[in-house]
């Protein structure tokens, strides 16, 4: 059934395939570029870097964001670092590129395209050059060269970083390049705008409908093509490490206009986050995974222990990861650590609010290395923890719990980052490209910048060169239709006049999704979850209460529009998780595991990307698949025992 899905992969050798592709793509003379207008939605790493680069090349850019400034996009929160395969000699470089490529494919559990991973790895070194030239203050060695550190799932040190704020510094680099283009008049920026619909004419994207969040007006924007760089959808789970306004609306509306959605159920859970302390908690804060290097994870051996952890003697503590994985101990991969924590807490051993937490204890490391060493390593993290929890983690064991963090799934794109809708390009976390079923640490920032600085500017240029003609009359007609459908959508929400605020429904959606379509899944629970979401959807549509004004600021309406999309997306995530009858990467189906409790892939049936098409006429979905083949890395099973 995969005959019409064409990923446009390069032919021949993987190495250097991207450079060959670039040569073959159509170019445009720079004086012709200012005749083209491009809409970019989202101003995080991929949106800002694409906007700046395309503007530098001469295109006219309209940039839309719901923030008041592009500097606030959620990329700013990324802590750890950015991978790059760099080396002094050409020979060593090739080895480094191969290694990063391999780690990305294997980390993704063989559910991403080899060609895209190879390109990511080949471009990585120039990304670092680009960022340094912009003034990104990466950490340096004593000899003045760039410093690197090791990151989860890797044996080599190739992660570049700016303390625990790498995302912030990379974003500011792109933001500044963007600001320079605004100064030069090449980019027009529209802040405080929510994207509510995509305008499609003859299967080509030609515009968007956005809501001005300050005055409530709906606005139409037309262009030659549209770029969505709108991030991931972890907020489906309500509590996640994402910023509160991060949402799926742009990609979901595009999906409902015909853009296919790939592997929606592939979501990554981060094992070390601060657990909730109260039901009104609005987000979960990530604590860098590096803490697992020096922290021992444990729970009381007895169920329901209410004692303070310092009063629990050594023989009554269960260091469950060290017990189950003597070789890797507390450093097992993210998904394994998350799953074991969830299981043991569900058996009743968990600590803290709602029994959803495990201890991460730094005491032994402090005794071994001294307090000053631990403080030097994790100083700012420990302060952040103390601010949020109110306990000193150098005295009392930290409480941690897994939290949704990143979504690998997203709009399906081909090798050129274009969706199946012509002229609709999707970048960064919003697309499904290199991360497969599980993203490798420090690859998110890399992917965003490769998409924005190097890949999309080339492929967008080529597409525009071959698609110059616009039928303005048809575009205007489609804009009118899209605008009135958004108007109607808003009216419907305002008309409900129920008695429950948006967050009530969002919290419930989160509970369903995290318990049944989160860290681990099984068929029965998934079917139950689907029914529960259906019921919730009905409740939402009949009991929602939104302050009844569409003019001026209406934050509740913004949230309701986003939640409506999250609810619909949840059902697709659940269906995707049901259909994928295997475990791979972060998608763990309890029915498919080895005797040791490890994920068991089924390469015969599922070595493919699930591609979901929305059928507008009967409001249903069809699942297609794009087969994956592996030439360079052999399909194998990982083993951390």
């Amino acid at each position, binding site marked *: 059934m995969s005959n019409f899905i064409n990923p446009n992969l390069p032919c021949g050798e993987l190495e250097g395939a991207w450079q060959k592709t670039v040569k073959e793509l159509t170019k445009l003379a720079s004086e012709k570029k200012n005749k083209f207008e491009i809409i970019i939605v989202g101003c995080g790493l991929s949106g800002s870097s694409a906007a700046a*680069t395309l503007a*530098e090349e001469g295109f006219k850019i309209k940039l839309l964001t719901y*923030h*008041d*400034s592009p*500097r*606030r996009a*959620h990329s*700013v*929160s990324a802590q750890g670092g950015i991978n790059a395969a*760099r080396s002094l000699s050409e020979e060593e470089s090739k080895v480094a590129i191969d290694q990063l490529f391999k780690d990305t494919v294997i980390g993704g559990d063989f559910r991403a395209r080899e060609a895209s991973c190879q390109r990511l790895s080949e471009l990585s070194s*120039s990304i*670092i*050059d*680009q960022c340094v*030239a*912009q*003034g990104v*203050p*990466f*950490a*340096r060695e004593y*000899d*003045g*060269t*760039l*410093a690197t550190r090791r990151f989860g799932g890797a044996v080599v040190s190739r992660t570049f970083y*700016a*303390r625990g*704020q790498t995302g*912030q*510094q990379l974003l500011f680099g792109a*933001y500044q*390049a963007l*600001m*320079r283009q*605004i*100064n030069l008049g090449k980019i027009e920026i529209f*802040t405080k705008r929510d994207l509510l619909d995509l305008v499609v004419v003859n299967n080509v994207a030609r515009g968007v409908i956005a809501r001005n969040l*300050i005055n409530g007006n709906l606005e139409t924007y037309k262009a030659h093509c549209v770029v969505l760089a709108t991030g991931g959808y972890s907020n489906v789970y309500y509590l996640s490490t994402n*910023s*509160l306004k991060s949402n799926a609306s742009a990609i979901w509306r595009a999906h409902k206009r015909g853009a296919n959605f790939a592997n929606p159920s592939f979501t990554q859970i981060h094992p070390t986050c601060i657990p909730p*302390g*109260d039901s*009104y908690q*609005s*987000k979960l*804060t990530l604590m860098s995974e590096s803490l697992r290097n020096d922290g021992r994870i444990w729970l009381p051996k007895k169920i329901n222990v209410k004692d303070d952890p310092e009063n629990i003697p050594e023989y009554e503590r269960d260091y469950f990861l060290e017990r189950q994985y003597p070789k890797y101990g507390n450093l097992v991969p993210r998904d394994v650590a998350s799953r074991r924590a969830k299981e043991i807490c569900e058996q009743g051993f968990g600590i803290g*609010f709602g029994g959803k937490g495990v201890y991460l204890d730094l005491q032994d490391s402090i005794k071994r290395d001294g307090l000053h060493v631990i403080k030097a390593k994790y100083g700012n993290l420990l302060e*952040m923890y103390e*601010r949020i929890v*109110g306990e000193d983690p150098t005295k009392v064991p930290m409480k941690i719990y897994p939290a949704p963090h990143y979504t690998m799934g997203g709009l399906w794109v081909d090798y050129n980052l274009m969706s199946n809708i012509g002229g609709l390009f999707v970048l960064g976390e919003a697309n499904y490209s290199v991360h497969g079923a599980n993203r490798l640490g420090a690859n998110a920032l890399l992917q965003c910048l490769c998409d924005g*600085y190097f890949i999309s500017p080339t492929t967008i240029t080529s597409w525009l060169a071959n698609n110059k003609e616009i039928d303005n009359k048809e575009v205007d007609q489609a804009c009118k239709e899209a605008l009135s459908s958004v108007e109607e959508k808003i009216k419907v929400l305002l008309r409900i006049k129920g008695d429950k605020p948006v*967050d*009530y429904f969002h919290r419930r959606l989160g509970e369903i999704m995290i318990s049944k379509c989160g860290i681990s899944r099984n068929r029965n629970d998934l079917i139950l979850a689907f029914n529960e979401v259906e019921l919730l959807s009905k409740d939402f549509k009949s009991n929602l209460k939104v*302050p009844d004004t569409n003019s*001026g*600021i209406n*934050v*509740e309406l913004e949230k309701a529009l986003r939640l409506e999309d999250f609810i619909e997306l949840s059902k697709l995530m659940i269906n995707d998780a049901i259909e994928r009858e295997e475990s791979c990467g972060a998608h763990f189906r309890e029915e498919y595991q080895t005797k040791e409790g490890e994920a068991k892939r089924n390469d015969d049936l599922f070595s493919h990307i699930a591609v979901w098409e929305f059928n507008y006429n009967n409001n249903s979905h069809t699942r297609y698949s794009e087969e994956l083949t592996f030439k360079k890395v052999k399909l194998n099973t990982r083993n951390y025992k």
Partner: protein
Amino acid sequence: MRDFISINFKIWRQFNDESKGIYKEFRLEKVSVEVSLLEALDQLNEQLITKNIRPITFDHDCREGICGSCGFLINGQPHGPNKGTTTCQLYMRNFKDNALIVLEPWRAESFPIIQDLLVNRNTLDKLIIAGGYFPIETGNAPDANLIPISSEKAFSSFETATCIGCGACVAGCKNASSSLFVAAKLAHLGQLPQGINEKKERSIKMRKQMLIEGFGQCSNNLECEAVCPKEISADWISWMNKI
């Protein structure tokens, strides 16, 4: 330990830039000390919505102190009483039972009020637009290790680059000066060898823009440093003045 407390809020309510603002009082019963001030406001807003009262408007997003969206005066102090802490990282355990918490928006001519606690800070972006960058374009970068940078210099540049653009320095200054914001950006870029050539030009452009956008002059009161959630030193203002 007190697990739940009650709070008396006095909050600035203003429909838009043109309308008159007024303080309104609200009482929030039984709020957990484990939640943040913004989460307490979420809770208050849920109650207001069910009572058909317009919820309180404030900006926020990451809720982990890095995006710079949040910020208002809490009992007269930008971002509240704790040092090096953004509004979203201020937890209710910092307040006593039945405490009075007064919330009002940043007060500065360059930050017009949009609604309630939400102000328009686009002027900060305009300062960057005027010249807060290197004139480098994609694809023209030399090898990143071509110019060595000492780890101290890189770190010092990084420290000034951690500014989150929240505007607290402006709100805390009696002259509503943006000197610390501009100095931080100039110091981030000007300490690096890549940016040494246009150091002076950049400074002239950004400082000229400060006046255009209506920010006040610096009179060395150092309030900006005291309220900066990222604890950026006001010494950088003197550094800027010597460029």
